[in-house]
């Protein structure tokens, strides 16, 4: 594996680019338009599962040397669980490099993450050999990208009326009548949208029409009477039990079915009966458990503009301090890359989550994991001036009016359906209308590029900070005869340790192995506290000194010096093997 990168060089290179030099590729492009894309794709359409599959296959055909598409199982509804792997085989086998796992869309209605994974594959491939840092990243690392953890939910959201698509499609008897999923919402008026239903009840309602904008239905203050009641979503009583829409498709939370701090339904709603009961979660967990080189993980959700880390529940305990230090640096860096996003601990700044995916990957698989909640409402009016104006109640961009303003003038009314009368079989004369499914949680299409790129950039930064082992300076000193003192510098070049402290506590990552090969007998081994000062070493008290177990791993951005006292002759190879940080070795001559 060729690796020209050395510590500190990246920053130096960037400074050079800005100040003086111009890289070759930019020279070539100077004075003309951008180079053509190998694969000209557009990024302003939301795709369904089939279209995602087509795009993945197209990219795999275009860049077959780097891309491998596989299905790691099928969803309950029989859809393929796509995983695209990016690996440059010329820089080594996939398992010998740290891997970044990026998943999205575990909640069916939280769709944008899928397009981010597609954009990431496309961007890395288009710019390999064009942008040095991208080339290096692709050469050093492996990426696994899962556009949709919940393809059934996604298609329900995309292709059908889309209401209540958070869940997957494993049948659940939500109303306890012994039949599953027999009474969901339906599109009664055939306009392709599941609308809200409201009924005019003069003086007896809970809501009234706002005098500011007749489209705003506002709750009446306590003690007052409104003219409208909201009766729920569009649908009828399919099973004749006297209730409407009480048992729709699915009825659980696919991101509560993971195995860390999993809790039963009465503590954590929607968790199902046991961890990895859901075929989608099980397939991806099997995939991850078979790849212990996965060192970084991102799970894209929406909405709110957050860079979330675990723990999901306060009473599950805090992370060890050394792990928090790593998360803090990554998270704070991300806040600078993602305007309007905050770095947040799930339970503290969002709400309590038991059995979420990134709790499991952190605690059970030893993977430094984030979950980005894509899209913050502040981005509708993303300037300090407009944010200030929103505080003025008379402004057309204050309160609920702001959403109508944005829809009227930037989306040309595309996201709202006017209330229209309807004769409902159970409710009588009602009106149906309101916001469409994309409004609010999903960013406007014309802002997708920026959202995709910034979030991708954060995951690439995260991937770049996965552990990366290298061997530095080595010295051989003959004590006498065949007795030698050998010192080797061992470095983890990046921020994330080869084994997090939590992974060590749980014993879920194989220890790093420091091994010796050659015609030598290791008499003693120890860590050198400071190789620039004379002084004792910290002896390693293990039985097999040619195979030293390092359970605590190698701290990020640190060089350690190992000293061996050996008897022997010829060449001696010292190898450091970290499952999540690759393998590095150096050979010295005993003479």
């Amino acid at each position: 594996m060729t690796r020209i990168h050395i510590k500190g060089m990246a920053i130096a290179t960037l400074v050079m680019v800005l100040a003086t030099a111009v890289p070759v590729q930019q020279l070539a492009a100077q004075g003309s338009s951008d180079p053509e894309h190998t694969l000209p794709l557009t990024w302003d359409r939301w795709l369904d599962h089939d279209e995602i599959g087509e795009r993945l296959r197209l990219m795999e055909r275009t860049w077959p040397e780097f891309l491998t598409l596989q299905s790691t199982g099928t969803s309950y509804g029989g859809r393929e669980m796509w995983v695209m792997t990016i690996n440059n085989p010329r820089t080594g086998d996939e398992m010998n490099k740290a891997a970044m796992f990026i998943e999205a869309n575990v909640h069916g209605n939280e769709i944008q993450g899928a397009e981010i994974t597609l954009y990431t594959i496309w961007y890395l491939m288009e710019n390999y050999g064009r942008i040095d840092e991208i080339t290096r990243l692709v050469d050093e690392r492996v990426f696994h990208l899962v556009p949709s953890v919940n393809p059934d939910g996604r298609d329900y959201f995309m292709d059908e009326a889309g209401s209540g698509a958070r869940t997957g499609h494993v049948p659940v008897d939500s109303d306890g009548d012994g039949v599953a999923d027999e009474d969901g919402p339906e599109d009664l008026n055939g306009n392709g949208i599941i609308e809200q239903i409201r009924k005019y009840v003069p003086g007896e309602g809970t809501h009234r029409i706002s005098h500011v904008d007749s489209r705003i239905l506002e709750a009446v203050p306590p003690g007052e009477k409104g003219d409208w009641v909201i009766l729920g979503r569009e649908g009828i009583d399919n099973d004749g039990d006297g209730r409407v829409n009480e048992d729709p498709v699915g009825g659980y939370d696919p991101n509560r079915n993971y195995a860390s701090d999993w809790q039963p339904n009465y503590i954590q709603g929607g968790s199902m009966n046991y961890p990895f009961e859901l075929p989608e979660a099980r397939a991806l967990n099997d995939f991850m458990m078979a790849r212990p080189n996965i060192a970084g993980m991102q799970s894209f959700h929406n909405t709110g503009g957050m860079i979330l880390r675990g723990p999901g529940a306060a009473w599950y305990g805090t992370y060890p301090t050394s792990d928090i230090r790593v998360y803090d640096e990554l998270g704070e860096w991300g806040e600078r890359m993602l305007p309007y996003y905050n770095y947040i601990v799930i339970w503290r700044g969002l709400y309590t989550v038991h059995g979420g995916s990134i709790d499991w990957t952190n605690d059970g698989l030893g993977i430094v994991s984030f979950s980005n909640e894509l899209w913050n409402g502040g981005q509708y009016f993303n300037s300090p001036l407009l944010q200030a104006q929103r505080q003025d109640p008379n402004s057309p961009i204050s309160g609920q009016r702001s959403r109508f303003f944005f829809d009227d003038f930037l989306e040309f009314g595309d996201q709202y359906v006017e209330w229209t009368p309807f004769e409902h079989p159970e409710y009588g004369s009602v009106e149906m209308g309101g916001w469409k499914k994309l409004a609010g949680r999903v960013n406007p299409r014309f802002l997708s590029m920026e959202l995709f790129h910034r979030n991708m950039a954060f995951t690439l930064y995260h991937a770049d900070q996965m552990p990366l082992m290298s061997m530095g300076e080595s010295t051989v000193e003959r004590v006498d005869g065949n007795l030698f003192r050998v010192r080797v510098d061992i470095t983890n070049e990046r921020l994330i340790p080869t084994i997090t402290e939590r992974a060590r506590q749980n014993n879920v990552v194989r220890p790093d192995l420091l091994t010796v090969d050659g015609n030598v007998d290791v008499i003693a081994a120890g860590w050198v506290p400071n190789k620039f000062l004379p002084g004792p070493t910290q002896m390693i008290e293990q039985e097999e000194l040619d195979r030293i177990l390092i359970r605590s791993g190698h701290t990020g951005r640190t060089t350690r010096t190992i000293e061996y006292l050996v008897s022997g002759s010829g060449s001696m190879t010292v190898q450091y093997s970290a499952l999540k940080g690759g393998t590095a070795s150096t050979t010295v001559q005993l003479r």
Partner: protein
Amino acid sequence: MQLAGIRGLRAAAGFVMLALVAPGGALRGQATSYLDFDGLTRELRSLVDGSNLATMRSLGTSREGREIWLVEIRNPSGTPVDTRPGLLIVGNLEGDHLVGSALALETIRYLIDQNGGEANLDEQVVYVVPRLNPDGAEAMFAAVHHARRGNARPYDDDNDGRIDEDPPEDLNGDGFITVMRVPDPSGDYIIHPDDARLMKRADAGEGESGAYTLYREGRDSDGDGFLNEDGAGGVDLNRNFQHAYPYYERDAGPHMVSESEARALMDFVVAQRNIGAILTFGHSDNLVTAPNASGGLAGPKILDLPAFADASNADVFDKGVFRTQGRGFGGGGFGGGGGGQPRLRGAQPGRDNDPNSGRRPATTVNRQDVQYFEAVSEAYGEITGITRVGINREAEGAFFQYGYFQFGVPSFSTQGWGLPEPESDEQGAGEGRGGRGGGGADGTDAAVLAALEGAGIDAFVDWTPFDHPDLGDVEIGGFRMPAVMNPPGAELPELGRAHGEFAARLTSMLPRVRIADTEVTDHGGGVFTVSVEIENTGYFPTSLQHGVVSRSVQPTMVQIQVPPEALLTGDAKSSTVQQLEGSGARARFAWVIRGRQGASVEIRVRSQKGGTETATVTLR
């Protein structure tokens, strides 16, 4: 009753025999020895093939490809089987607990032979999984007895990158893995002053100085300085379930329900919501000793001697932990910089949640449910005569705990056999302390040893000198664990028959919801009041209190089969009652409907654990 345990069991079983002699004396072909997988399969097959009351199918396969058999016992010509109140029996979850599968087998035999006994096979169903861990059980038939609990998943127990590389070895060739005691001035243990076969931890406060280190019998096969720290036998299935799961602990597996065997059972159970009670045979007990008034289970009792030996590997995960910081440097990659103090925060602007908010799962039996556990426990003692357990393992991740705390039904575990009562109260006084304390002649080791010896069971290998290739002069001895965990085969027919009778009793206690009464009042003009009274004629309520709390048991539903628009007033078309007590408690529902004079109207009652029934009334 003083007749109990091994010795007592003969007498107790005699009582059982007397009770059952009328239907036909001893049961056909009862096994008097433990069966391997093929033997068990043959026996189950012949029982099932010989009766129309039973069917048999596989829930899935073990890691080594053995079938996990499920036997369903019911009269097929009764009510639809999937809606009948059911009892689930699971045995041999721990590989070394062969007696569990033997009792399950004998229970099947009893139920077939006795046409269910107290169970009503026309309206009820009994599901039996005799051996959940066939791979672990099969290991008990190997030449050397390991007493291993786990299944066959290859597992890196000491997390050193090598799998199953340092198993125990039968050095003295006696067919058992026992314990080695090695003279060692820095050891923690001494020979017990009251019984030279047993060991105790030296108590410096008493002026005692440790003289021995204890290991499991074997060598340090991988040369890492630890003996027998990574043998075969991966995951203990009775530590792999979701309640009080021991995260990341030895034998518990990588996560809850990680094992194919555990998953096969879970997938069956969650699809079979008519299961109203669960009985498991395993290393923990809540039957001989019912939960106390606060809902807590009796404390664990484990043997010190093997625990002391296992403790020799207690620090296996500490070797290789280095706090050497080395030399740090500035950022690599295209990020870099940063560092500084951890900010230990994570609230977002305007939001900082309370760490103490949120509900926590129950850890003790609901006080309102304790009475039912007590009643079943009483029946168990009465029928089996077992009043005293030898070993009682802490129930962490045990299936029977899932059964109550998450599935929400009465759920039980028993070793399936017991120890005789001690000669005097004094002798048993120290038992309650469990095994972890000082150990010795007043603890579990002594009690178990005395009881087994009293019953004529040779459960202890006397210490004999051995020249260990690495450790020099040692002694090898200790408990024969298979004999500690399983009674002699000759006891199985009597024990089996008693447990068959108990299973039938437990089945008879399931809730049974019936339509007790219906009434129609004609108000004229096509308006009628229809009312129905339902009754739970079983013993258990339709849902335990915890079944309600945990929302795992659905309310009993009563539905009138008329179009919604025919309902004029009164109860909802589908009405429910959360919980209907047993022993004849009733609930009443009434609807005022519009209908045609002389028309028939169906009323359905559907109780998840208490069965379904339909009544038809005529409007007149």
